[in-house]
């Protein structure tokens, strides 16, 4: 693509292709060397690379070595370009280390040439760790050179080299420290070279030996030196803290650092210290507050942002940073406005009240010419707004809705969607806004956002249901998106029958059957059937029957099939119950895991897939599991967290389980154990979270084994734990230990590590329960902070953690069913009833919570929240793993102040063992 420009501009000289440039490299061999020609060719080589051309290793190496001939010529202009070329070619060419000695000549102290910094920076590209020892002296002198450019070049090069040569560069702390404190060359040369035109006066540089550096006003060397010091010391929290204290100075005073960039780095180090060391919080916070008054915007902003992103920041701590940001909002510079609004927007997620003081300024930004600023302004305002300002805001938004892109419209609609839920009283104006934009032109993503917003309103705001459904009906009359039509028809089928006048929707739906494509027709048929099954009006049932019968002649198979099925079922109450009204659905995550296991296991294909072992969930739960966070929440996430951190919503139970299954599959020892029947839904902590070793346990149940997975974190810096294993002493029979997979070595950097302890179930058909005394055994070794190597000698130690229990909950997974139906069906199966008195519990709510936790069963019909505080009935449902079948429990309980909770637990299950399992879980 670069060659096209060639013809356009006629600047042929620079747009030659690679081949021409390579051929012209002859010019380097000419004698005498022409500095001007060579510099022009070097420029073209570098420029080729900057345009995206790639050189082969051979080509680059040849080119590299032909350029090195130019070291013979002393011209400064040529030499500087030569170093740039060396720097760029060194990434591709081989054996670049050969030119080290040529470069070293230019690095000599006291050589006052313009290209000495270039030489230093080129050297760090071609050298490696083995050479560092020899270069140490040069670097050390260069770092403390009084010329800022030389010092910066040396510091930056050391920074680049640090990962390759930690041991050598570590010793340069004193030099780096001196570079921070030294007066920059600006003050030394300020007077002497102040005569104008010096910056560009290449004429003055005729005598290249006496190159005078131009004065720098940026003090940037401090930034480089500070960066290097932090890099060297980053493992040593105390040293960093001292450094921040020392350089931060007293609150209010300006301190040693003059470079705003350096102060920004210091602020970041300070907030990292605050996060890690609660004792330092006060002092560091005072420093941050001092920087809010610094004369540089960059520093003010960095400090304000650091405070806003502090964990557990108190509202009164936010007033000052927010007012700093508020001033930025009315700046004329887009970058300042952008920075401020971005920070406020993420702060509004957690502290809307603190941000609300900026509302007026933010309203002015809604029409900002930078769309990103406007978007942030709107989304922030919608979070901080109060009920009174909503109408005004809506008016402003509808004013520019037609001028903006679809992408931006989606963001606005999402923001309004969350606003509707926040201020239900304003639903009328918002609904009319949404239905208005639904009629506008727009692509699929935009329309989908609007439709989903209306769906949410229907779901959460009762008052608007009928109006909203009417708007949707109108929309499908003229909707070009099949997917949206189908979703709306489905929703009409669910919500329509519950409204006072279901008949008015039937007309809209039947219109679809007449006018639309096959996919929409099929959805319309299902929707009609729901009306037939759910509306208790014989006239309606009859007309639905007539309409469905007409569909039997449809040209499409699916439409005909559905019509036939529904015609058959709607008259028969029990059938209609399962096929039309059915509100349970398989837990898709679990279904997927089981199916994958089934497909992967060659032996399993002898038997059909057992669907009964898949837990079912209600539609509500399925919806919640799949519910995505609205894009509003994601866009406003603090960018740093969004980039690195976990997804905003925790993974669902099913996802965690499949993740565990994958982890286990990676351990060869467990290959023959078969599939995991159940894993604890979340890790159980065995230590306090702030102890030196943090241990959690996850239990995995296999058909014939139980595997305990211990996640161990070593939080002690400078120690390494070797051969970490977990010793478990069971206090009951039924489980026999097989083997332990220990962690070979555990440092804070490699934490958490995983220990697996495997037990066999002596008789797999029984559900073995019990508790285990557990302790960690390991060899502890100190790490030498200077070398990073552990010492030879360690000492053996053990560390007692809390007991691990295997209870009924580990064998049961929650399962959603229709309780009354199932309860009756299981009436003939295994049953058990027992009465318990739980005097320790002080309310029915506590009893419900602990029952659900102990049994790990699904509470049904909202019975987990007692309505009365004296009598309550809790209904639970679960699935016992390993083909144990369904189990249901009904617990009637009473509470009186003196005796605590008394409960009568009736259990019905498909198998006797399951019944016993549940009863025994409470008995203990």
């Amino acid at each position, binding site marked *: *693509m*670069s060659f096209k*420009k060639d013809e356009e*501009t006629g*600047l042929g000289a*620079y747009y030659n292709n690679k081949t021409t440039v390579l051929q012209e490299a002859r010019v380097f061999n000419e004698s005498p060397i022409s500095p*001007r*020609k060579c510099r*022009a060719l070097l420029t073209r080589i570098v*420029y080729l690379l*900057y*345009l*995206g051309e790639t050189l082969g290793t051979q080509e680059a190496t040849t080119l590299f070595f032909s350029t090195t001939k130019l070291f013979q010529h002393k011209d*400064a*202009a040529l030499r*500087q*370009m030569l170093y*740039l070329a060396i720097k760029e070619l060194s*990434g591709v060419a081989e054996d670049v280390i050969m030119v080290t000695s040529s470069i070293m000549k230019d690095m000599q102290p006291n050589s006052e040439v*313009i290209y000495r*910094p*270039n030489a230093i*920076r080129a050297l760090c590209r071609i050298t490696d760790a083995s050479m560092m020892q020899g270069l140490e002296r040069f670097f050390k002198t260069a770092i403390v050179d009084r010329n*800022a*450019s030389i010092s910066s070049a040396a510091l*930056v090069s050391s920074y*680049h080299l640090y*990962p*390759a040569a930690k041991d050598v560069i570590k010793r340069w702390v004193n030099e780096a420290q001196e570079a921070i404190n030294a007066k920059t060359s600006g003050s030394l040369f300020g007077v002497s070279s102040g005569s104008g035109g*010096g*910056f560009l006066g*290449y004429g003055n540089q005729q005598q290249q030996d006496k190159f005078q*550096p*131009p004065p*720098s*006003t*940026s003090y*940037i060397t401090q*930034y*480089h030196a500070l*960066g290097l010091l*932090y*890099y060297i010391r980053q493992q040593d929290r105390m040293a960093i803290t001292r450094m921040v204290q020392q350089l931060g100075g007293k609150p209010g005073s300006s301190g040693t650092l003059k470079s705003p*960039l350096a102060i920004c*780095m210091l602020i*970041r*180090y300070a907030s*990292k210290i605050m996060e890690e060391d609660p004792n330092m919080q006060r002092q560091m916070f005072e420093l941050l507050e001092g920087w809010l008054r610094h004369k540089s*915007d*960059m520093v003010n*902003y960095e400090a304000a942002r650091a405070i806003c*992103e502090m964990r557990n920041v108190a509202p009164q701590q936010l007033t000052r940073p927010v007012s700093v940001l508020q001033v930025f909002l009315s700046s004329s510079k*887009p*970058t300042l406005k*952008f*920075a401020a609004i971005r920070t406020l927007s993420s702060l509004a997620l957690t502290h809307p009240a603190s941000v609300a003081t900026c509302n007026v300024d933010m309203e002015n930004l809604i029409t900002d*010419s930078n769309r*990103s600023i406007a978007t942030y302004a709107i989304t922030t305002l919608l979070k901080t707004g109060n009920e009174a300002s909503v109408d005004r805001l809506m008016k402003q938004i509808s004013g520019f809705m037609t001028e903006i892109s679809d992408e931006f419209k989606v963001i606005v609609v999402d923001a309004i969607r969350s606003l509707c839920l926040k201020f239900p009283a304003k639903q009328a104006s918002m609904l009319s806004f949404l239905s208005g934009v639904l009629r506008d032109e727009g692509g699929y993503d935009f329309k989908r956002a609007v439709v989903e917003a209306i769906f949410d309103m229907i779901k959460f705001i009762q008052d608007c249901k009928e109006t909203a459904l009417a708007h949707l009906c109108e929309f499908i009359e003229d909707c070009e998106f099949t997917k949206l039509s189908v979703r709306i028809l489905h929703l009409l089928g669910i919500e329509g029958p519950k409204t006072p006048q279901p008949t008015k929707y039937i007309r809209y739906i039947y219109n679809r059957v007449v006018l639309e494509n096959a996919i929409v027709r099929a959805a319309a048929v299902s929707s009609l059937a729901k009306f037939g099954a759910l509306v208790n009006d014989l006239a309606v049932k009859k007309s639905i029957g007539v309409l469905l019968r007409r569909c039997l002649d449809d040209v499409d198979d699916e439409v005909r099939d559905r019509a036939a099925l529904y015609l058959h079922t709607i008259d028969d109450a029990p059938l209609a119950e399962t096929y039309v009204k059915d509100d349970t659905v398989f837990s898709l995550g679990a279904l997927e895991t089981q199916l994958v296991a089934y497909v992967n296991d060659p032996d399993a294909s002898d038997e059909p897939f057992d669907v009964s072992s898949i837990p079912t969930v209600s539609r509500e739960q399925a919806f919640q599991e799949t519910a995505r966070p609205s894009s509003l929440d994601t866009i406003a996430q603090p*960018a740093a967290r969004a*980039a690195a951190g976990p997804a905003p919503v925790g993974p669902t139970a099913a996802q965690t389980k499949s993740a565990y299954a994958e982890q286990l599959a990676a351990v060869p020892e467990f290959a023959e154990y078969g599939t995991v029947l159940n894993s604890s839904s979340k890790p159980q902590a065995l230590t306090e979270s702030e102890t030196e070793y943090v241990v959690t346990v996850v239990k995995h149940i296999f058909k014939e084994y139980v595997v305990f997975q211990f996640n161990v974190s070593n939080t002690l810096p400078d120690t390494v734990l070797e051969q970490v294993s977990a010793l478990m002493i069971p206090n009951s029979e039924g489980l026999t230990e097989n083997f332990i997979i220990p962690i070979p070595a555990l440092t804070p950097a490699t934490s958490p590590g995983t220990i697996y302890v495997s037990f066999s179930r002596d008789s797999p058909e029984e559900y073995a329960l019990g508790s285990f005394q557990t302790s960690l055994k390991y060899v502890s070794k100190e790490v030498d902070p200077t070398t990073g190597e552990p010492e030879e000698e360690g000492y053996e130690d053990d560390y007692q953690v809390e007991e691990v229990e295997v209870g009924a909950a580990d064998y049961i997974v929650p399962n959603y069913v229709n309780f009354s139906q199932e309860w009756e069906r299981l009436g003939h199966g295994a049953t058990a009833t027992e009465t318990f008195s739980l005097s320790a519990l002080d309310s029915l709510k506590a009893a419900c919570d602990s029952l659900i936790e102990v049994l790990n069963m699904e509470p049904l019909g909202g019975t987990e929240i007692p309505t009365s505080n004296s009598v309550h009935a809790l209904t639970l449902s679960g699935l016992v793993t390993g083909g144990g079948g369904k189990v249901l429990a009904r617990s009637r309980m009473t509470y009186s102040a003196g005796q605590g909770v008394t409960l009568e637990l009736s259990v019905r299950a498909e198998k006797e063992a399951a019944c016993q399992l549940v009863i025994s879980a409470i008995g203990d």
Partner: protein
Amino acid sequence: MANLSLYCVSATLILDTDGNRILAKYYKPPHGSPANSTRTLHNLKEQRAFEKGLFDKTKKAGGDVILYDTYLVTYRHSLDLIFYFLAPPSENELMVSAGLQAFFDATQLLLRHSVEKRTMLENLDLVLLGLDETVDDGIILETDPATIAGRVSRPKADTTDIVLNEQTLLYAYNRVKEGVQQRISAAL
């Protein structure tokens, strides 16, 4: 998490007003990175796709800053060119913008206030060296435009320094001798 390393510029771009690449330098630390940066664009196809999308978003002047495709981008229009500095999204906007400003002002000094495509292509050596003095593989090297511009050397005309020493004089003498010999032999 804030960026604790000095690597704060991910790439420098200069595009023309049709979205064509005038200059593009994507940085990566020469000896491995201390912290993994978000995402790297290291092949030409990805880079071009990214630049095209970015250009579509920024071709209108006056925005100055945008979050685009996991990069924080500050940019600046000048006649028929657009200058971009790309950074990781968590970077301080003002810091990146200071870097861009320094590079831009230095370019202005170097090109004598006519920062446009033609002049830039005619003086590429100055622009490339100017960039090299502003950013070194992702680390901002200098933010004072006068210092940056002052550190860029300009080429001298070849003719100014004729070296006179024994060798060159001998060479000249030999040339003259050969010439004379040839003419004499031709005349004979």
